């Protein structure tokens, strides 16, 4: 078991590595996309909503396997969203190490809300 200071440091490292990794994947996917489709004219004036493949973790992963640059950018954005969630997850261990049951419970509630929202459990049916 890690002590408190080591956990704090671990959380800091996770935040930094998470953001850097996410930004690198987004940049890589972005350069790739622009190299292929950079001359197309973008149109964001009318809202159509993104295709299903870009709306869920499973869909994005399928797109990455099919080597779609837009899916690679979206994967980077998913990694970014996952970063604060990982921090909350680590905080559960931090409070457990301090034998602080109240805050283990509080942190687990926050974690449940976050995981629920990302997997689409909390989102309304379309």
């Amino acid at each position, binding site marked *: 078991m890690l002590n408190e200071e080591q956990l*704090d440091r671990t*959380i*800091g*490292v996770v*935040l*930094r590595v*998470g*953001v850097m990794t996410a*930004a690198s994947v*987004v*940049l890589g*996917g*972005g350069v790739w*996309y*622009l190299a292929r*489709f*950079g*001359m*197309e*004219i*973008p149109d*964001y*004036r*009318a*809202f159509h*909503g*993104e295709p299903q493949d*870009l*709306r*869920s973790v499973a869909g994005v992963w399928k797109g990455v396997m099919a080597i779609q640059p*837009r*899916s690679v*950018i*979206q994967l980077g*954005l*998913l990694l*970014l*969203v996952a*970063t*604060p*969630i990982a*921090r*909350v997850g680590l*905080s559960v261990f931090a409070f457990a190490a301090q034998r602080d049951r*109240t*805050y283990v419970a*509080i*942190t687990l509630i*926050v974690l449940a*809300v*976050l995981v*629920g*929202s*990302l*997997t*689409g459990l*909390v*989102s*309304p049916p*379309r």
Partner: protein
Amino acid sequence: MNSLEFSLVISTIGAAAGFLGSLTGLGGGVVITPVLTLLFGVDIRYAIGATLVSIIATSSGAASAFVKEGFSNIRLGMFLEIATTLGAITGAFLAAKIPTSAIAVIFGLVLVYSTFLSTRPKPEVHESASADPLAERLKLNSSYPTPHGWQPYRVEHVKTGFGAMLGAGALSGLLGIGSGALKVLAMDHAMRIPFKVSTSTSNFMIGVTAAASAGVYLNRGYIDPVLAMPVMLGVSAGALLGARHLRGADPRVLRIVFGVVVGVLGLEMIYSGLSGKI
């Protein structure tokens, strides 16, 4: 403008916004949505989705530094995150029900109000702290570093603060902003926490709050990767630079200039919403 040019322009604007936002404490994301909608005609839902992810990047980057300095109250942040994440999901739900023109008007009002808040003086120490038994039980009372050593403080009106955070979270989820100004207001005014603790704890919470609504936005197809890419990369690069310059610069003049920009964008959003342009 083709995709390549559009991405370059947007990332440059994002970098400028991130730089000024981190220097002035107003946050960079807050100007991106109005700029995208008013200047580039982007649908407000796409603009909100793109801004939301950039907020996660800047907040997570900044949080790692703040926690180390000892200003953040981790327990308080975690406890209030229950309120902000639930609020954020509610706000993100509402975003699909409310007409975009109403979202524009609310956005404008929040911008104008944030500008007003940033011009007020900030008292560092609050007097006559009476203890809230709930704060005692939740171990929210703590201390923070000052030039004269560690200064203890007490947290008051925990329930009021928790309720205000539900509102701040809902606005964050509805508008895709960090709503840092409102979080600070709740902690500073209602819970009577020292200003530096409020700002750094708020920063600590913003990424988690935004992640909660990001899940809903992603599911709804509001997050377009090609639009979010230059916004996120630009804003986080700018914010990183801003944080490096924070020590040397005197942000007073900058804060006024940026505050005026934010205020004008806010009025423009209200006008566009009321006249049905958004």
